[in-house]
């Protein structure tokens, strides 16, 4: 981690120690979902009419849909009428009252990841009603962005400051009819991030949800919209390596990215929602729709994800390659241990000529974990000379886990080049012994070998994130061998 980043973290960390503002708002609507609830959410947020109407259309459509079960994951159907869809802000009064009440295993993990003490309470969901004061660092951060003309704000704020952009782009990549969870999100989304990078602007810093301090507790139905105007560049970091607890089991987020001519969006995720206990109880269901559209010529969208948390991950960050010569990339490390299940991958939809896509997927299965790669490469008739390269590797640790691969390829233009490479391997006894014979401890040896396996993905992550991701992987695979 760079010295700057460390200082920044220290500064931010300091902010947590004091300056807590208690703001309890008890108006949580009764569980259940109907048009009145959607209208209420929209009214509470004082949204313009177009948005209320959009939410209602989504709800009406959602009521005609069924919960999908095609993924290679198992879960009992969710009772959507038992969920409360509006609570602002969440008081967390049901959470543990102090760190003493938190699962000691979780605290042990924080210790290992080096999470600062004052951070642990927030991450573990302790009822501190934490809406902390704006910190000078965050203010400076915003000022620098504003100087560059970059908009980075909570979605609910952007609805008021940039309604025209929201109206133009919201749902233009993931329409409200897209899929069960995205449609539900469209009807009831709570908050999220909005980013607009103007023409020709290179965003002066990496945008991290870490800094989006006034939009905490929006995990359940998060909505993110990122627009990179012609010739711009932005790198967006989502998540945090420390395991986060949330009282909501279901997370159905939507992320939409739009890259115009020559724009480049790099979106990195480190996902570590609570995976449940060693028996798989109590973990988060992470059912997320992420899609980017390269709308302009030579646009470039790159997804990098490190998925280690959640009881169930259902997630396919995808690229619609519409603009001529546009580029889509997907780099993924997905890890399952204990009873975790992951069904993740990507879709690369080639529409424009000379479009290119790269998929590098690394799945690691340990314990009783089930890991599935599901990917679609679709070359439409208009996509002359399109190219795709897919590499899909699975690493198994132990005999109880599983790795599954479902690659779908649809080619409708004969000039396309599509390559697919796949491998499944175990950490070999030879590799392990080689490290041991050099004096390296078994756990360190396993971490080293796994990190090596993931290297081609990790190198796509911003520096600080890569270090965190490596530590995270080490912790989540602890005890998986030997």
């Amino acid at each position, binding site marked *: 981690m760079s010295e700057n980043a460390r200082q920044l973290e220290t500064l931010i960390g300091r902010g947590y120690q004091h300056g807590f503002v208690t703001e309890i708002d008890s108006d949580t609507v009764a569980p259940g979902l109907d048009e009145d609830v959607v209208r209420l959410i929209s009214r509470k947020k004082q949204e313009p009419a177009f948005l209320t109407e959009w939410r209602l259309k989504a709800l009406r459509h959602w009521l005609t849909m069924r919960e999908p079960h095609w993924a290679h994951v198992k879960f009992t159907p969710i009772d959507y009428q038992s969920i409360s869809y509006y609570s602002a802000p969440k008081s967390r009064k049901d959470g543990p009252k102090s760190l003493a009440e938190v699962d000691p295993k979780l605290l042990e993990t924080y210790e290992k990841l080096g999470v600062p003490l004052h951070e642990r309470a927030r991450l573990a969901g302790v009822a501190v009603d934490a809406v902390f004061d704006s910190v000078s660092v965050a203010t400076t951060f915003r000022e620098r962005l504003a100087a560059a003309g970059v908009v980075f704000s909570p979605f609910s704020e952007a609805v008021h400051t940039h309604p025209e952009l929201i109206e133009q782009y919201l749902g233009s990549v993931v329409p409200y009819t897209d899929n069960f969870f995205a449609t539900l999100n469209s009807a009831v989304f709570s908050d999220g991030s909005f980013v607009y990078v103007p023409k020709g602007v290179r965003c002066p810093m990496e945008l991290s949800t870490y800094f989006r301090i006034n939009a905490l507790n929006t995990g359940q139905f998060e909505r993110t919209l990122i627009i990179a105007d012609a010739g711009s560049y932005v790198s967006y970091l989502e998540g945090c390596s420390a395991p986060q607890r949330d009282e909501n089991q279901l997370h159905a987020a939507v992320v939409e990215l739009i890259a115009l001519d020559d724009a480049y969006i790099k979106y990195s995720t480190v996902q570590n929602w609570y995976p449940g206990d060693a028996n798989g109880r109590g973990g988060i269901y992470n059912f997320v729709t992420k899609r980017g559209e390269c709308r302009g010529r030579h646009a470039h969208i790159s997804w990098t994800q490190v998925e280690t948390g959640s009881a169930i991950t259902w997630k396919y960050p995808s690229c619609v390659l519409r603009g001529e010569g546009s580029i889509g990339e997907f780099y993924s490390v997905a890890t399952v241990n204990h009873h975790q299940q992951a069904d993740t991958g990507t879709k690369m939809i080639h529409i424009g000529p000379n479009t290119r896509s790269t998929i590098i997927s690394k799945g690691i299965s340990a314990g009783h974990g089930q890991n599935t790669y599901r990917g679609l490469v679709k070359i439409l008739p208009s996509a002359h000379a399109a190219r795709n390269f897919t590499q899909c590797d699975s690493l198994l640790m132990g005999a109880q886990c599983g790795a599954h691969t479902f690659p779908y390829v649809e080619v409708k233009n004969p000039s396309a080049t599509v390559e697919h490479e796949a491998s499944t391997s175990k950490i070999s*006894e030879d*590799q392990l012994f080689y490290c*041991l014979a*050099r*004096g*390296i401890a078994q756990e360190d040896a396993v971490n080293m070998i796994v990190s*090596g*396996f*993931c*290297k081609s993905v990790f190198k796509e992550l911003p520096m600080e994130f890569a270090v965190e991701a490596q530590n995270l992987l080490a912790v989540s695979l602890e005890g998986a061998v030997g």
Partner: protein
Amino acid sequence: MTASRTPLLAINDLHVTVEGKQILNGLTLQVGAGEVHAIMGPNGSGKSTLAHVLAGRPGYEITAGTVSYEGRDLLALAPEERARQGVFLGFQYPVEIPGVNNVYLLKAAVNAVRKQRGLPEVDAFEFLGLVREKMRLMHIEDSFLSRGVNEGFSGGEKKRNEVLQMLVLEPRLAILDETDSGLDIDALKVVAAGVNSLRSPERACVLVTHYQRLLEYVVPDIVHVLVRGRIAKRGDRTLALELERRGYDWVTGEAA
């Protein structure tokens, strides 16, 4: 540290089976500090098994016998402990570990040893200097620094890398398992120079080899011939030459 009369390594009546098959059958061998021993023998005589058992590879069942190193029970130590105590195995077939950087592994190994000795972690800058110096000795190119462990290495590169690791780790007891096999004459000289550079009154080296060629460049104090899991013959440098002239049948016949 060790009294001159106590051998650095003392193997006594060692019996080892692999998947129920007897491989070592009452092997006794003593290696004193400052000595270089060559273990020769026909294929399947148990040479590599001996090397692996000393390094602690799993899968071998020790049914009888003892091994002491620096006067302590070597077999009671986990493989990584042995390495940290100064036992080094140069592999016959070094494995590839994709994505793990050569230097990274080497640094982790050095630090594991240093930690054992209560020393601070090695300074990255100094470490690189040291590695570069040893690389020159082993005729290894600079590009090696950024490559994965043995990834895409030729047979000769792998062997030179093993010796490089040995030079950086400076073990007290080095066991080289057919490090000479598959090397052309130039590479063999480089490897031999590396091994010789580590010879000292405190250290010992066990060379496991099938041919006497390496012994022209690394002259052993004692040559042992292993047949069917035990030492059938021992002698000096001239024994290796005689073996080359007369073949292993000469000894196996005698041993039968």
